[in-house]
């Protein structure tokens, strides 16, 4: 048990008194009867009142109290009386008086002169003479009366106030009686369960203090994950559940050949303009391209083949060699499909990736120069548009988007191409959520994939569904150096795919 504190003694005394006398009319006098300060008693009263063991009534009174200076005058007399008392019958020099009286000298001289209690020798202003035998120290008397709580005329109060000898003070004390929960000795309530309680077994007898469940605790130091990465993980899991293998996308620098030409994207296509794509000064061009394949790509652009008319233009190797920051992860898909085409016999694949792509675009609320692309594709014999729609329904319903419809669209490397729309219950409208299609034969056949093998693919950005999910309307609040740490800290669990 804790050592008995002085407060416990005070509490015991108070409760014993209340038990016998029934009340305490004035806490101040009760404190002095116990020999403790009023402040100490008030602490105990507050604690007991909180548990309604005592009932306390506040008594508030405003009263004039003496300043430290005035208290000195009550003890030693007013400065003027002190001054007169210090003058011997033969008189005394100002300097000697000053030395004797200290701080009281200036005030005392002025007041004594005003009362005509002192005078000066003619021709010698330095020698102070006493002009009265004895003085009646009125100031001392008034201060003493005030201190004793006796009545003092208002005029005197004003005078004392002016001389800064008194100040008004509010004093609070209490009258006490038994409260509804009165006990002679209260039980100590435990706040926490300690090892000691468990070991000694006294938890059986303990009564616990009520707990404030609404109180804010100290924040604990924990780690946090960026919301965009949370969503990425959830989508990754959906792909893996659907049997997709991740593609290696850790190559931001790509050649125009793999980013555009191999995808049957003509060299004059607007996406290849410098205001859409980041081209590079270093490394400016690619050093190696697969020559056999390049020749086939060139021909299909220039003069067609594989059942196609081709674009019929003068294909330039220089354009294909220009390096860039990849504009889509489909550049990686193209490398993967080319690699797959070289493996015999053909085996079907499902591939996915989620990684960064780059566009030389003006940055605003919905556009960034770099963002994440989600891409999925399936490569096999005999795949159909119906298969694509079926896979998209599986994929998007895992993301909570089960109502889909499809709009014809144009994309140089997919045919047919479908924009994917999902009905958003909150926004009450159809919103575009991605793009999809079947890769063109002009893209697949030059790689060496067998006739009859189709690739169905789709893509979307990671940022847009995340923004819709978390209700963020400015993409810069989600990705980049300006993201607020508080957003990362307050981010709820990502429940996609649950």
């Amino acid at each position, binding site marked *: 048990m804790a050592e008995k504190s002085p407060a416990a003694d005070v509490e015991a005394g108070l409760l014993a008194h209340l038990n016998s006398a029934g009340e305490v009319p004035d806490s101040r006098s009760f404190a002095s009867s116990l020999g403790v300060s009023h402040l100490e008693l008030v602490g105990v009263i507050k604690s007991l009142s909180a548990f309604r063991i005592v009932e306390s009534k506040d008594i508030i009174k405003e009263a004039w109290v003496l300043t430290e200076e005035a208290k000195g005058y009550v003890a030693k007399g007013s400065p003027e009386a002190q001054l007169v008392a210090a003058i011997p019958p033969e008189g005394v020099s100002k300097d000697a008086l000053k030395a004797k009286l200290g701080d009281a000298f200036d005030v005392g001289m002025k007041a004594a002169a005003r009362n005509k209690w002192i005078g000066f020798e003619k021709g010698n202003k330095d020698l102070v003479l006493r002009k009265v035998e004895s003085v009646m120290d009125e100031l001392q008397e008034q201060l003493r009366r005030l201190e004793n709580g006796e009545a003092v005329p208002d005029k005197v109060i004003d005078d004392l106030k002016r001389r800064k000898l008194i100040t008004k003070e509010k004093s609070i004390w209490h009258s006490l009686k038994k409260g509804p929960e009165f006990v002679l000795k209260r039980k100590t309530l435990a706040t926490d369960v300690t090892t000691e309680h468990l070991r000694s077994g006294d938890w059986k007898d303990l009564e616990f203090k009520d707990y404030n469940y609404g109180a804010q605790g100290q924040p604990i130091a924990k*780690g*946090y994950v*960026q919301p965009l990465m949370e969503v990425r993980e959830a989508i990754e899991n959906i792909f*893996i559940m659907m*049997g997709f*293998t*991740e593609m290696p996308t*850790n*190559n*931001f*620098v*790509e*050649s125009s050949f793999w980013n555009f030409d191999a995808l049957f994207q003509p060299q*004059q296509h*607007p996406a290849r303009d*410098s205001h859409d794509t*980041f*081209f*590079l*000064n*270093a*490394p400016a*061009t*690619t*050093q190696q391209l697969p020559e056999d394949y390049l020749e086939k790509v060139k021909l299909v652009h220039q003069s067609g083949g594989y059942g196609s*008319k081709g*674009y*019929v*233009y*003068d294909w330039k190797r220089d354009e294909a060699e220009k*390096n860039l*920051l990849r504009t889509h992860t489909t550049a990686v898909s193209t490398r993967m499909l080319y690699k797959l085409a070289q493996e015999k016999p053909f085996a079907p694949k*499902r591939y996915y990736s989620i990684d*960064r792509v*780059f566009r*030389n675009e003006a940055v605003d609320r919905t556009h960034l*120069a*770099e963002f994440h692309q989600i891409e999925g594709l*399936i490569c096999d014999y005999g795949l*159909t*548009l*119906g298969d694509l729609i079926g896979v998209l*329904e*599986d994929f998007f319903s895992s993301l909570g988007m089960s109502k889909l*419809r499809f*709009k*014809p*669209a*144009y994309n140089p490397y997919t*045919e*047919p191409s479908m924009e994917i729309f999902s009905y958003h219950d909150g926004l009450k409208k159809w919103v575009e959520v991605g793009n999809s299609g*079947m890769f*063109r*034969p002009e893209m697949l056949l030059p790689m060496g994939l067998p006739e009859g093998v189709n690739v169905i693919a789709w893509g979307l950005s990671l940022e847009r569904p995340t923004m819709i999910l978390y209700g963020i309307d400015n993409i810069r609040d989600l*990705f980049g*150096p300006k*993201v*607020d*740490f508080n957003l*990362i800290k307050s981010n709820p669990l990502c429940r996609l795919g649950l």
Partner: protein
Amino acid sequence: MPTVSVGRDRLFAALGRTYTQEEFKALCFEFGIELDDVTTEKAIIRKEKHLEDDGEVDDDDEVIYKIEVAANRYDLLCLEGLARALRVFTGTEGSPVFQVSSIPRGSILQMHVKPETSKIRPYVVCAVLRGVAFDEARYNSFIDLQDKLHQNICRKRTLVAIGTHDLDTLQGPFSYEALPPHEINFVPLKQNSPVYPVIYDSNRTVLSLPPIINGAHSAITLATRNIFIECTATDLTKANIVLNTMVTMFSEYCETKFEVEPVEVVHYDGRKTVYPDLSCYKMDVSLYDILGPIGISQDEKQVVCPLNKMQLQAESHSLKGEPRISVSVPPTRSDILHARDLLEDIAIAYGFNNVPKSKPKCMTIGGRQPLNRFSDKIHAEVARGGYMEVLTFILFSHEENFDMLNRADDKSKAVIIANPRTSEFEVVRTSLMSCLLKTLKHNIDHPRPIKIFEVGDVVMLDSSRDVGASNNRRLAALYCNMVSGFEAYANLIKLSRKLWDWWILDSIVKVVRAPHVNFGENYYVPTDEPEFFPKRQCKIVTSDGKQVGYLGIVHAEVLRKFGIPDPCTFVEMDLEALL
């Protein structure tokens, strides 16, 4: 995607019926175009002049539909083509048949091409529209279409430039020449070539100076009846597409509807070619080939109708018992390159949303890239250590990647962007240090201590790779507090390691170490790098001496440049070296 603005009432008149906005939207969705915006002429003018919307609704004001069309459908870039395609799609009209008028050989207009043109702009193709009946709306549409073609397929006139002329002000035959500037009466600006292309008539009247200027003399007006169209180009395929688009769209207003008068282009080497070529491209495909990949089964008769709806004349026949479809692709449908394009049109006409859903049958096993899986594990390890993940950009200004880190660019590491839109996108990051400092700066009022990290790629020049650069996966962590973190976690760390981030480093070293990665007794080697305080930095090396990371207290100058008032420690590790 290009956007075409058409007057709603004119469009509905051309379609022969009216639609509610919702009905029209639904029609667009099915056909694969999109009603992007509904506005009025006055609203467009207000917007151009940056005037406030006065809220006045004027019933007389014509409603404008802004319609987004596919980038390869040049035949939908004007009201005439759009309305025609929708009429055929809804079955109210058959596909038009375009014809080149038969003219006796001797009276055909000629364009003579001079050899010098091959040096600058080698191709020209021409045609004539006779007896055109313009009104103001048609005339505006004619001008707008040229503008749209110039903006899109012509790539701002670099590939193809269109000139349209009032034929009655000119005298054939014409000549296409390229002359030194002093021999031409006026010289276009901003061209730097010894010769400039120019088109003359037989009276040496200048028709145009391609690709920029058309002469005032032969400019077409509302009163023009006979139009001479020339397209000069650096790409002949596109020149033909552009010429065909112009004539197929506006021959609708000719005296003989859909008939175009040819022009013979006489090449300097004697070759003669008659333009326009309005012949249909014939395709013959097996029914299975175009239905199989959609995943629907139809008989050949059912396929003919949807193709016709997309302006493709189709007939069914059979070869050795196999049902086949032969298709005539009109000159308006230059987007059809392959049987796959027919397949798409059938699917569109059938309705994407009517295609029965199915599931791919192939069995495959899911999996992840080892590096990404490993990165995720490290990422979780650091987050468990109480750090907050941030995600930053790889593009930086040159200053942020070098100067602000007290580093110099020795040109051996960083990938440099050739065409940055702003200074924010000049260089690809070579470390994550700037990323974390910049992120910290934007959250400078956040309560201390701040502990952030990022797992991400940097890019380095790398001559061993085909493209000359490679990514490298990094972990970076930063600790910022009123004190640097010295001593703060000394009790967690054996020996006398005092930097906070040391703890992260040690914990990573512990989780990746032998037998996968070998670290010796002392894997910390003091360094002297400019971005850190002297004597408060080191690198971390494996037992074979390979550097896999570094850390230190960020130099005061670096902190000042990033505007950070409090001490920071920073650690960066190469995760690929630890895999």
